[in-house]
């Protein structure tokens, strides 16, 4: 039986493209339209992986043994309740509905709770907390932006349809697509290569380029003066995105902060006493600053090259400050290039239920936030926790050795659809459904726009989705804790309130004073 499903949402990157057309045959995706290569790799092939976990497993005598769902849930709940300070990590490839239950579970356990944001755009969140952020949804950029800056990111590879759907190569109400000029440029480059090859064959050496390679001289090419949308890429190496750019600025590694600072000076009409900043001539930066000031609507997209290089959240803070300064002269926005499809959702859900976006701790009975203390890697490296639950993430493949070793030292529960590195290390290994392929749910695009993921095929039998699974674990945890809210006595409540932290008491006193005043 063949059926076609339209407007399917891609559960891969922060772009959340929602115009996929998928052909399903015998409960298998066989063909799709509109998806990028990354999307096709997962939606057509990847999800059917042979590494798929089909039964819950528990480690017995060093071997993972398939068990019933009930047994696995009981074991997981026992591990979590026995632990003094568990850590719940992951969430970025799960649905918001599951994340909600995750917060409830962490609250019940008094555990630490963190999402993948702490190893990617955590610094961006911290910068936002320092200085705010002038942002907009991607459609606003599509309709209005005539200057697009990709800073320390390479969407051509990481978010392949970002340019096509939201920035340079899309038609908006007030700005048109630059697709044609890009094609011409590509054609020009290709014929230039042919000419060079021919001249090498005939006269034995290449002729000087007609259009000086922007990269070699790092000078702004003539395209900087053109009408329509301009694309500037700032990166440490020449990426595919940089090839498409009207101007590519190659910075020395870890010198982004200096360049941003120089641009801030130039935008603020200050003179610089140096010739080069971060490997770029100041006169070229002046051209960039001019382009920024003279645009109608500009945008900076930044990636992990800015959040995870020297300076970390101070880089972002400065970039946001640059954007703010530019808003005094024109309209400018800035936006992080969020990676996983629902890492933004994890921030959103954690924030509405606790007030904080990541790096959470519930050990005091109320939410606490402190990046550096409750962020996963710091916590694991210090060895604070004594059990870990990992959901929809693979820290096994990406975390530093010390952090992974610590996870292995204590009981580890994993919830992932396939047998990735962390699942192989797990003590209780749960299977789950692929969010956005086998189950529906909400995800938040990189600009905080919620989109509902669709269910396209039926999951394998007996496999629960993240939300159902977490609900079962939560229920089991409550049974073990024996805490039925309806039967807790007043004395018990009083006893617990005795442990109220000082800060709260202080606050109450302060509030009273205010009231009196």
């Amino acid at each position, binding site marked *: 039986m063949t059926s076609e499903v339209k407007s399917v949402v891609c559960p891969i990157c922060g772009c959340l493209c*929602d115009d996929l057309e998928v052909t399903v045959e015998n409960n298998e995706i066989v063909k799709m339209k509109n998806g990028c290569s990354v999307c096709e790799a997962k939606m057509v092939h990847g999800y059917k992986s042979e590494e798929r976990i089909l039964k819950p497993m528990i480690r017995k005598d060093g071997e993972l043994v398939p068990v019933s769902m009930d047994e696995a849930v009981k074991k997981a709940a026992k591990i979590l309740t026995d632990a003094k300070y568990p850590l719940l990590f992951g969430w970025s490839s799960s649905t918001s509905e599951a994340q909600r239950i995750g917060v409830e579970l962490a609250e019940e356990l008094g555990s630490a709770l963190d999402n993948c944001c702490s190893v990617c755009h955590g610094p961006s969140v911290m910068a936002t907390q320092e*200085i705010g952020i002038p942002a907009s949804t991607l459609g606003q950029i599509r309709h209005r932006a005539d200057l697009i800056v990709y800073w320390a990111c390479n969407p051509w590879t990481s978010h392949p349809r970002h340019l096509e759907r939201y920035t340079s190569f899309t038609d908006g109400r007030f700005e048109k697509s630059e697709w044609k000029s890009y094609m011409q440029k590509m054609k020009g480059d290709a014929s230039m290569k042919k000419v060079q090859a021919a001249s090498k064959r005939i006269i034995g050496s290449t002729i000087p380029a007609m259009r000086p390679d922007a990269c070699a001289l790092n000078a702004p090419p003539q395209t900087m003066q053109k009408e329509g949308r301009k694309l500037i890429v700032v990166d440490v190496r020449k990426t595919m995105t940089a090839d498409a750019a009207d101007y590519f600025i190659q910075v020395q590694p870890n010198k982004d902060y200096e360049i941003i600072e120089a641009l801030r000076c130039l935008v603020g009409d200050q003179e610089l006493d140096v010739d080069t900043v971060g490997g770029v001539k100041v006169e070229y930066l002046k051209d960039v600053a001019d382009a920024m000031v003279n645009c109608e609507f500009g945008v900076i997209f930044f990636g992990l090259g800015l959040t995870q290089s020297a300076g970390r959240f101070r880089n972002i803070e400065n970039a946001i400050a640059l954007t703010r300064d530019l808003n005094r002269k024109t309209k400018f926005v800035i936006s992080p290039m969020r990676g996983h499809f629902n890492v933004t959702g994890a921030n959103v859900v954690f924030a509405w*239920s606790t*007030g904080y976006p990541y790096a959470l701790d519930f050990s005091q*009975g109320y939410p606490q936030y402190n990046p550096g203390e409750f962020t996963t890697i710091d916590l694991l490296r210090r060895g604070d926790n004594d059990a870990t639950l990992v959901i929809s993430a693979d820290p096994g493949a990406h975390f530093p050795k010390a952090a992974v070793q610590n996870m292995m030292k204590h009981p580890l529960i994993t919830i992932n659809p396939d047998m990735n590195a962390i699942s192989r290390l797990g003590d209780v290994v749960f299977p789950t459904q692929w969010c956005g392929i086998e189950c529906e749910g909400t995800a938040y695009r990189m600009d905080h726009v919620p989109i509902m993921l669709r269910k396209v095929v039926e999951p394998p039998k007996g496999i629960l989705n993240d939300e159902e699974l977490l609900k079962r674990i939560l229920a089991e945890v409550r049974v073990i804790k024996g805490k039925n809210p309806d039967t807790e006595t007043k004395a018990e409540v009083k006893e617990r309130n005795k442990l109220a932290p000082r800060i709260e008491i202080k606050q109450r006193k302060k509030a009273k004073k205010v009231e009196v005043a």
Partner: protein
Amino acid sequence: MTELLIKNGFVFDPINKINGEKMDIAIKDGKIVHKVSGKAQVVDASGLTVMPGGVDIHTHIAGGEVNTGRIIRPDDHVKDVERKTAMTRCGTGYSIPSTFTTGYRYSRMGYTTVMNPSMAPLEAKHTHEELNDIPLLDKATYPLIGDWWFVLENLAKGDIVECAKHVAWMLDITKGYAIKIVNPGGLESWGFGHNVHSIDDQVPNFCITPREIVTGLARVNALLNLPHSIHLHTNNLGLPGNYTTTLDTMKALESVPYNGKPVCHITHLQFASFAGDGWAHFQSASEEISSYINAHNHLTFDMGQVIFTDTTTMTADGPFEFSLYELGGHNKWVNSDVETETSGGIIPFHYKKNSPVNALQWSIGLELALLIKDPWKMFMTTDHPNGGPFFAYPRVLAWLYSKKAREATLKHCNKKAQKKSLLPTIDREMTLYEIAIMTRAGQAKALGLPNKGQLGVGADADVAIFNINPETMDIAQQFKAARKAFKHAAYTIKDGKVVVKDGEVVNNTTPGRTMWLDVQTKDPCVIDEEMRRKFKQYWTIEYDNYPVFDHYLRVPEKLTVKASV
């Protein structure tokens, strides 16, 4: 079948014209009834004040913007935490409390119905997800459609019927309750960093003026027979001298046919009643505004009262937030534009008694509330969290019912502001009856919610009981005791269940409903290929993925409205 009997309370129920009579209220299955059987659970309210559950017409409690406010303000949360109990979830405050905390804190003050006034339609799912997590309250939310391209285009064409159909469609798919308009025309202009400065400025690229948007949507509202009027945040809000714009807007709305039902609700009026030609000459325009309002009946208002505290301002009025940021002294600025629809901005703000402007703002809010004679026109809000967090409501009430309370605060205010303030000349002290109108009955009436804000037979059994004995307590004199009583309700009853007792949550099993309008037009908005194509052009998500699907509302309450188009 649950039965409840509230015995011997002093009942204040303005819709049924009950003013402090000692009587019993019977409840059965979540509704008020004539009488109950002898088995009913009895709540002894002797010596206590019984009012309908509180209704808040305008409070930013959920949605994308509120949540961004939460994310950027850990400094706000760390000073105010809510511990987990066996009954309740934990959370944090202060000015932008987390969702669960919001529910508990409202409920502790005797509130049972709240309205979230600002939702970007594109992010409607987010708002509804958050509303689901606000327990113990009935909720609804207003989509922002004043600067929606479909509205601008249709109104520019003069096609009011087509505009009405689109608005009906939008209310339906975003599960909204009323038409919210913020700085009409200004938000579209802000797309390129501009703003409109009077109601007759042209909106760039759209050939329309704010006047046409407001009056056009007011007519649309009438055509659709929506229960609430349009909900308007005026142009030039928060700028000195803006009262002329406000007066112009109110006069412009006189052109809309008035048949006894208000045509517009102008929200947080305090922020729209500034005189003076700059911050240095900042003045109150409460006399001019209130004298107009006392002479006209086609509008309702809420206060947007300022509280002296550290709070977070957030509004869809992006250009206003930026101009506020440019005044200096603020450390964070968030702007969040939404394609095709709206914009937004957030700034943490500390209202200080020693600031001449802030102190006068505080005074303006109260002057307006006291000078507007009819409490059915003016409701109590702080535009949470813009003027101050909602749990400061009891303090606002104290200023309204007690001159002594006003004087106690005024004497600590900036001296210049004290001189400009009209408060010393106002002797009015509100009665409990008037308070009940301003906090419940009036708001429910303006919202068109017949089952809320009253205790008549058939109404929802949402009741608030306060520890105030009107026979023995003079609230104007003992304002602190009364304030405390309003802060910690003796009982809050939601849908016939006691959810709060002595200011503590005792029952957390009531999630509260989300009300939304199903507007039935005679021939509904056709979603044809043309519309789908426009959708693809205007938004970055597909038509099929745009609506808020039914399951996003945990406990939906559909209110069906028959439109006249």
